[in-house]
């Protein structure tokens, strides 16, 4: 067992700087580390058979070169970058990958990964697109297949007990993350958006208990410390697809604003709903991953099968949680950010704007192409937005 000397935010920064480092240590201890893409692969099931789930990302700083051979440039730059890293052997330390039908391009990655990247194990979960009951059953079926696949990989039986324990462990971690997010409610927040992102990224790179231990350390440290973020005029919520590197948030927080809340998948989406413990744990998991996760990739509606539809009612049923966030975290502006070529979020932008306008929250839409250079011109937009809402 490697001695970990640093704690709390220092430890967080270490991991954030070099994510694979800890994963490689764990492998040296004969743990199996499984990479997973986006939020839809069920980490609880991996934990339950003693696998270490490791969230896979691209790298904004690494120019995409190899991937262009296999993926057109007019698709999600995050996934292009991820594939690029794979082709460059930067994910060789993984014992396997798990992917799900998160979006069109996401569903292409497994075929490419299996064909062109050296992989010991891979599994694809074909997550349905609606929240219909039959779709929930289908998701459960998909998870039963995933269970078989995990059992044959590890030679371990995935018993209900183990699964329950894993779900409890992850629910506990979710609770800790929410506790951390509570520290962003005061004005000024006790922890910055940049730091919060680093914490979540770190936690997504560690085994569940280790991540939770780290979270506790961070929470204690942040409560104690005196040198938290300064007071700023704007308290912002950031919405959109994956943000796992800090430049965008740093840019926002270098201006007269604190980023106090998010609705992204390396943030609240991953942690704000607990998984219900059902007799067959797979029922609770299926419900969580299909119905409770808030990524626009799922066709969510208030009550499905309604024969009449009214736009505002539909919006409320889909986005009231944003209104609640805004109230609890005293948000006075929303930044809708999206990666170029992200369709799921692209169609949602004007619709979310409708909802926010309806509850009187100003918002601005920023599109970027997953490069730091592309962020520079956005600075003026954000500052202009802050001037407008002040």
């Amino acid at each position: 067992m490697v001695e970990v000397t640093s704690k709390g935010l220092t430890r967080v920064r270490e991991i954030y700087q070099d994510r694979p480092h800890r994963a490689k240590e764990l492998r040296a201890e004969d743990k199996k580390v499984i990479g997973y893409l986006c939020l839809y692969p069920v980490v609880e099931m991996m934990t339950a058979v003693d696998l270490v789930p490791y969230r896979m990302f691209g790298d904004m700083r690494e120019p995409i070169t190899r991937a262009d051979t296999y993926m057109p440039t007019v698709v999600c730059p995050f996934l292009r970058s991820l594939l690029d890293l794979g082709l460059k052997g930067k994910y060789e330390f993984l014992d396997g990958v798990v992917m799900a039908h998160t979006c069109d391009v996401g569903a292409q990655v497994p075929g490419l990964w299996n064909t062109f990247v050296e992989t010991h194990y891979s599994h694809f979960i074909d997550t349905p697109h609606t929240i219909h009951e039959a779709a929930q059953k289908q998701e459960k079926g998909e998870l039963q297949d995933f269970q078989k696949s995990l059992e044959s990989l590890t030679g371990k039986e995935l018993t209900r007990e183990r699964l329950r324990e894993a779900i409890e462990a992850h629910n506990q971690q979710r609770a800790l993350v929410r506790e951390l997010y509570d520290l962003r409610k005061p004005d000024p927040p006790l922890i910055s958006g940049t730091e919060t992102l680093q914490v979540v990224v770190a936690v997504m790179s560690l085994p569940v208990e280790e991540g939770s231990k780290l979270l506790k350390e961070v929470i204690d440290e942040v409560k104690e410390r005196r040198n938290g973020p300064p007071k700023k005029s704007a308290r912002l919520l950031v919405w959109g697809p994956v943000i796992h590197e800090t430049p965008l948030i740093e840019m926002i927080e270098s201006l007269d604003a604190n980023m106090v809340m998010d609705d992204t998948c390396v943030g609240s989406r991953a942690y704000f709903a607990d998984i219900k413990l059902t007799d067959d744990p797979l029922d609770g998991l299926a419900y969580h991953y299909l119905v409770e996760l808030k990524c626009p990739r799922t066709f969510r509606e208030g009550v499905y099968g309604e024969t009449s539809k009214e736009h505002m009612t539909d919006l409320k049923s889909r986005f009231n949680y944003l209104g609640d966030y805004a109230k609890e975290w005293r948000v006075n502006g929303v930044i809708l950010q999206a990666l170029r070529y992200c369709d799921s979020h692209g169609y949602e932008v004007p619709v979310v704007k409708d909802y926010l306008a309806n509850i009187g929250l100003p918002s601005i839409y920023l599109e970027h192409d997953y490069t730091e250079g592309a962020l520079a011109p956005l600075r003026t937009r954000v500052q202009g937005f802050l001037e407008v809402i002040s």
Partner: protein
Amino acid sequence: MAWFMGIDIGSGTSKGVVTNDGKLKAYHLLPSGVNYRIAAEKLREELLAKAGLLPEDIAYTITTGYGAGSVPFSNQQVADIRCCTRGINRIFPSVRTVIDVQGQSSQVIRLNEKGQVINFAVSEKCASGSGRFLDVITNVLQLELKDIGPLSLKSENPVVFTTGCAVFGESEAVSRVAEGIAKEDILAGVHKALADKISALVDRVGLEEQCAISGGGGLNVGLIKRVEEKLGVQLLIPPQPQLINALGAAVMAEEEANK
């Protein structure tokens, strides 16, 4: 003793050659200006003068390049990609991959022993993959295009250009300059970015030794070095890289006449 003419009207420069039993007898370059027809006429005059020929001495003329359509005295038009491989094949028969970096686009082409195209990839409709990217940055830095290659080689630590787009690249370069970063480091970064694009194209068609570079890019030692680093091969550089397509056009003219 048949004579052949190859004309390449590029969007920036027009090039022409005259060959005679497989040997280069005369060549000329001039700016295309705003009227391709006039440029072509002028080019022909110069070529004939240099070769001491009359128009009727030319057995066959093939034109290529962006303005090929507006050349009145052409017997036939041929796509630049084909001319490029014929031209390279005439100079380096052993070459199987050619990297053609032009003002408006870059292309990587694989060819067989006859100089025929067997695979190719063209940079996307975006200035980032073209020599134009270098022009843009050169303007930003207020330099001469001919100087940027050597200057870039002076760089110890190239700036990392995260974006491919020439427009982003421009504003990125501007802010780097404003930050007081040395021109050579910025240039080295730009050359690297372009070299990355090119090597991605090479990945697509597959690299086969020998590999040559042609087009205006073949004059830029900075770019050549970066591409060589990236691909781990030594590039063959023809004496007049920007003439290759014109030469290839003449070679095709020979083929046509011998049919």
